[in-house]
């Protein structure tokens, strides 16, 4: 679905992402984990066109490198941010309606909305906000904002979702709801989740990629990855050999 090859992001000589290969497949919830500064968010920035990089990102046979942020979004790649970013002054319905309308003609934009599009109504129920259609997004609870942001990607017909810490600040129940939602939407999409929470990862990951110092340390199922001694070393803080991650990336 989405194939990243040899991504490198260079911040004034510091390689925040250093030769990462990553493939996201339809039907999978793919977790990206790793210590702070491992390059997870920067990788998402690169794929979505925010950070300049070398290497290649191909979706459905089309190279995305060098395209503008909004063009990449139109290709069906949606992302969320660490702090949920919704349009606080607009209602839930308005938020979703905007997200659903990136392809509208100027003429359609200049007219009033007569009815909510069907997929907006449907998505509101799916993300548990069916009763909040006319609530301003600014007064939603923290977790609801994150669901709304995911919902905005769904109505926008994104089929590759890159979610940056979607459960940050959520309680137990909300986490489980979110996890089930992720699986539900991954049925016909590729979902990548940047996350720190290991329990959440174990419960809901189909596949895990561990990043460390800008490179892929390990990739596989939850069991494969948690059994990997290099991963354990990184998380216990004993891996200091600079060469190791580079070796791992080629493995």
């Amino acid at each position, binding site marked *: 679905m989405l194939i990243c090859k040899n991504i490198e992001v260079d*911040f*004034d000589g510091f390689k925040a992402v250093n030769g990462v290969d990553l493939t996201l497949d339809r039907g999978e919830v793919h977790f990206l984990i790793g210590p702070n500064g491992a390059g997870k*968010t920067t990788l998402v920035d690169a794929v979505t066109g*925010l950070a300049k990089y070398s290497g290649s990102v191909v979706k459905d046979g089309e190279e995305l490198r060098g395209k503008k942020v909004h063009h990449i979004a139109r290709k069906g790649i949606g992302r969320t*941010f660490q702090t949920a970013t919704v349009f606080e002054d607009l209602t839930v319905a308005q938020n979703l309606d905007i997200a659903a309308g990136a392809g509208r003609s100027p003429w359609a934009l200049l007219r009033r909305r007569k009815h909510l599009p069907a997929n907006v109504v449907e998505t509101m129920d799916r993300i548990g906000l069916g009763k909040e259609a006319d609530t301003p997004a600014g007064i939603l609870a923290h977790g609801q904002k994150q669901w709304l942001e995911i919902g905005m990607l769904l109505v926008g017909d994104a089929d590759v979702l890159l979610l940056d810490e979607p459960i940050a600040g959520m309680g137990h129940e909300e986490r489980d709801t979110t996890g089930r939602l992720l699986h539900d939407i991954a049925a016909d999409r590729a979902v990548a989740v940047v996350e720190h929470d290991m329990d959440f990862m174990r419960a809901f990951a189909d596949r895990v990629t561990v990043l460390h110092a800008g490179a892929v340390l390990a990739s596989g199922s939850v069991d494969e990855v948690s059994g990997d001694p290099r991963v354990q070393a990184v998380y216990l803080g004993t891996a200091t050999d600079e060469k190791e991650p580079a070796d791992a990336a080629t493995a």
Partner: protein
Amino acid sequence: MDLFIGQLFTGLSTGSILLLAALGLSLTFGQMGVINMAHGEFIMAGCYTAYVTQQVVGDAGVSLLIALPIGFLVGGIMGWVLEALLIRHLYHRPLDTLLVTFGVGLVLQQVARDVFGAPAVNVTVPEFLRGGVDLLGTTVPKTRLFIMGLAIVAVTAVTLVLRFTPAGRRIRAVVGNRDLAETAGISSRTVDAGTFFIGSGLAGVAGVALTLIGSTSPTTGQSYLVDAFLVVVAGGLGRIKGAVVAAIALGTFQAVFETYSTASLAKVGVFVVIVVFLQLRPQGLFTLRTRSLA
């Protein structure tokens, strides 16, 4: 060749005036993203400080030397008060701060008008700054040399303070990452107040110096403000180095453009150059890298 050197010199001189006016802005705008439209009135306050000092002291040379530190204090205190009373309460509303401080500027202008009158006043140039010096075949007014010298001193002083004093390190920490600096136990409030004091003090110094090359009226500061802002915009946020390069570049451009065309077209030219420049480097000459989205 003479013409070239003459122009280069005019450019450097115009540039150092711009730089003096913009240096303080670069600190306050750079650090807090706050646009202080009253900065021009702080410059104006510096001008009147020089004028009043001369009325009191009499001797032009002595009063200039006294007025420089007093001007710094006057500007600094005004800035400090403004920060404490208004700007501090308007963080996260940078555009509103711009308009509020414009209102403050209006009030200050009117105060100056009521106290000193609307007509311009003049400060006598000290004996030792009258006339010119022959330099590389052109005659350069001593007042211009003095302003250039002052600009160099001011930039050096600011750089040294930022780099080598504990207060300066705190300022740089807050510029780099406000939240992180707070976590590290730096009170960003104190730092902001300090920065505003220094930045506004520099406006006062600039005002004192500007009395050497022009007369002073309540709207004196306003005329320098927009150019000073353009320097900061082109130079990039929070970078003294950027402000220096941008000031000299814009000063030289303006000087050269004026010789081949008119002063009014030069202003338009500067605007066009900046818009074109922002096409190439939207974040200014030298930018700090941060990981934030905005």
